[in-house]
């Protein structure tokens, strides 16, 4: 009798869980699947009154058109260039800074850390106006340098904060032993701390990359030459011109999503870590 009741209870529990899980999966995945589906459809299957998720006659034409007849490949490479360089500079600068914050108790440390946390919350609209004027005066508008300078700095608070967390977990005794053996402080950092926190460095690098890969407002403001545009801005202007050509647009969007999809997959295990104080939003 009792086991009968328990069985009913378990059945009820699983029914609720799987109904909820199905709803969550549908809402999370369907729009993404719809993007992929549209990107493989011919126009005739798009402008129809009875849409289907699986294309009847799938085609690569949209990808062929996007890759062969538009600026999308150029935008993509521009984004890749800016994002990779941003990530590299940001990680070098941030790991030095994070090590300083992690291993030293110096006067001014707490105010500096609080500033780093606070700066992340600034609305970009405040910074973009004076930065635009500075870039204009330095003749840096319409160069990738303007984006590199901005993005590197904007990712620093996050990367410093995340890396500091990872460095804090490495026992100090390891470095002390190296120092006794005659290693310099910088040597202890590069030979002991950095290799041990490789996982953290990869995670921080991926967040820096995704930040730069996604950025829209600065890229739109600083760059208006077609051949220098990054993916978000290029896609938007492409969108303006081909407003009803959903199939190539979705193909371009899929291409735009692939790098961040790969990187998210790599970082997945570290996702929950250091995020709250780190304030990332994809």
């Amino acid at each position: 009798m009792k086991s009968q009741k328990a069985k009913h209870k378990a059945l009820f529990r699983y029914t609720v869980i799987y109904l909820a899980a199905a709803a969550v999966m549908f809402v999370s995945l369907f729009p993404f699947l719809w993007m992929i589906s549209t990107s493989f459809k011919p126009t005739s299957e798009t402008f129809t009154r009875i849409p289907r998720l699986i294309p009847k006659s799938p085609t690569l034409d949209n990808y062929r058109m996007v890759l062969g007849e538009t600026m999308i490949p150029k935008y993509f490479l521009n984004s890749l260039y800016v994002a990779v360089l941003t990530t590299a500079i940001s990680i070098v600068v941030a790991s030095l800074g994070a090590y300083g914050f992690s291993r030293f108790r110096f006067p001014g440390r707490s105010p500096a850390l609080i500033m780093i946390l606070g700066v992340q919350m600034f609305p970009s609209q405040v910074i973009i106006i004076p930065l635009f004027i500075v870039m204009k005066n330095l003749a840096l508008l319409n160069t990738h340098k303007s984006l590199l300078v901005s993005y590197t700095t904007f990712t620093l608070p996050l990367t410093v904060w995340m890396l500091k967390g990872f460095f804090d977990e490495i026992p100090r005794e390891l470095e002390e032993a190296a120092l006794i053996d005659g290693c310099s402080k910088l040597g202890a950092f590069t030979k002991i701390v950095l290799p041990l926190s490789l996982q953290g460095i990869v995670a921080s690098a991926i967040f820096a990359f995704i930040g730069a890969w996604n950025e829209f407002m600065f890229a739109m403001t600083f760059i208006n030459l077609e051949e220098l545009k990054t993916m978000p801005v290029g896609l938007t202007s492409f969108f303006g011109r081909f407003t009803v050509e959903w199939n190539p647009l979705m193909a371009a969007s899929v291409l735009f999503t692939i790098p961040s999809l790969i990187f998210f997959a790599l970082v997945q295990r570290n996702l929950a870590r250091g995020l709250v104080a780190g304030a990332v939003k994809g």
Partner: protein
Amino acid sequence: MQKQVSGLNKGMGRAYARPASKSLLGEIKKNSMAYLFILPAMVGIFAVILVPLAQAIIISFKRYYILDILREDPPFIGLANYATILSDPQFWYSLRITIWFTFACVALTMLFGLLIAILLDQDFPGRDIVTVSVLVPWVIPRVASSILWKWIYDDQFGILNYMLSKIGLKSFANFPWLAKAGSAFWAVIIVVVWQSVPFIAVSLLAGLRTIPDEVYEAAEIDGAGFWQKTTLISIPMLRNLITILIVMSTIWDFKVFDQMFVMTEGGPAGSTMVLGIYTWMMAFGRLQMGLASALAMIMFALVMIVTILYLRLLMREETF
């Protein structure tokens, strides 16, 4: 959360308790290496964030029409820009809808984030697949997802109207979601919430995992059901984490730009002109840098109030 955060800092403080008798100068000298380590990062933040912030304050007191600066130095006009803005009905409208937008996004994001976190905290076969699916909206770049949703919302061929008319809501057959003031506002909220929920859900899930099973077991012995366990244990124990996430989301959603710009550009007829868009358009559409800086400073002041709250909460949570 507590566990996690203190984990980040464990091992600090014990080996390096500062001797009380040292002088400040001696401390600086002793740690001179530290300043070298942090120098590049601090110079960057100073030059590209803090100096521009100071410049923005100055510009907000000037009549700064960008086409004029070729001819003359922009003159100081005191608080005139602020006076103009405060008497501008569009500003008050933008402020009002930005606050509503933020409130709706944060409330919905937290609600769904918590529900999904609770779901993912249950033990059931297939949970990992659900967890990975939940992350997908976060992975899609904001601009790409905005364009994707524009396609979903398309009045004639969009999949949303098709689904709604399939389930009997025939009046939605050709509903122009983004071309009507009220629905455009909510349509963007749905997209922002869709993209924000994964982060909140994952953070809350990490928090839920730190609550020891024994606490729930003890509650079960006392006859607590699912509802009691959630409202009397999970939520109170995650109070600090939930507060921090609410504050962070508030700041993010208040600054919304990308999705709104791509999907509506502040339209139709200025009805979704949130402060973030209004400020950008004032600067780079109308080229009124002075007025735009004043607007940006007002945004900044509002965000800073919330940020200070955020930092105080964090400070309570962590020891630096």
